[in-house]
């Protein structure tokens, strides 16, 4: 199993709306495309700094990811929510992770 970890940076006032879009729009599209929804985490919005929201998707291997990617980009809903989240984001990263042999989640 491999994982896509998206880390989004948002203003604290936008964190709740960002999470709402992830829950109601991104998760349905990504899971319909074939990705596994692993987790979504956020830092506290009460610390006077940007909130970091980390979303983790799973896939078996890069052949499967290629199929998921195809399904994503052929789904008009993917473009719609991507535009909404991009407007709220101030920065962030996407990285692919591969489990260490001793990881309990592999």
């Amino acid at each position, binding site marked *: 199993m491999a994982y896509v970890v998206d880390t989004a940076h948002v203003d604290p006032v936008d964190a709740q709306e960002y999470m709402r879009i992830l829950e109601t729009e991104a998760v349905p599209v990504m899971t319909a495309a074939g990705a596994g929804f692993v987790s979504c985490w956020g830092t506290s919005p009460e610390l006077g700094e940007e909130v970091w929201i980390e979303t983790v998707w799973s896939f078996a291997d890069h052949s499967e*990811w290629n199929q998921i990617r*195809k399904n994503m980009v052929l789904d008009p809903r993917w473009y719609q*929510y991507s535009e909404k*989240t991009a407007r709220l984001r101030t920065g962030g990263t*996407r*990285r692919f992770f591969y489990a260490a042999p001793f990881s309990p989640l592999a």
Partner: protein
Amino acid sequence: MSEGAAAEKERALESAFRRCGDFIPEMLHSVVGKNLSDARVQMVWEHAYESPEAYQRYMVHPFHANILDRYLLNDCPERIVADSPLGDGTLVGYSCEGPVYFMDHGLRKVVLFGLEGTAEQQGSFVEALRGLATIQDGVTLSVVEPNTFGVAWFDGVTPILPPSQWTHIWELGFSSAETYDAYQQGDSPLARAEASGWKEDGCDAVRQAVELHYTVNL
């Protein structure tokens, strides 16, 4: 590029395109160009594959998903490209028997055409384009092919999208920027037709066209 895209990210994307062949040996003749035409396109990446199978290996390579898509996919936090004014012309391509497009230096001119009309009208126009290399000084190649790849990007073969508005690709090679300028400003029938917006006689098949050009230096 998106408005406000950081210059360092643009350089990172260009570098990723240039280094791609180091990681994915199936990729051939990769060239990154900075568009010099008036079209609202900044960066052009041309690359080739020996076969659909070779292209399919590129598609599933981790470098593709990890590095290239980081800057390209709409949902990526690090996306720096904007939606292209070319629409589905963002990705175009064609099949050929060998590297008829290949040039290791000079200036590349690419014209995307949306052709319409009868097969005869289109055929005679395409033949006129193809013939340019044999009659024009400084033109090292002139390739015209149907854009079969843009709608079949998943495996390089099977169409998964509706037909593209850009039906044909015209690729020209010029020995230098000077020979390109001489052609563009010259009085050859095709140069005049292009300057007129493809409104001259013999261009009835042209519904739309957009031109890009950039330096090639391998």
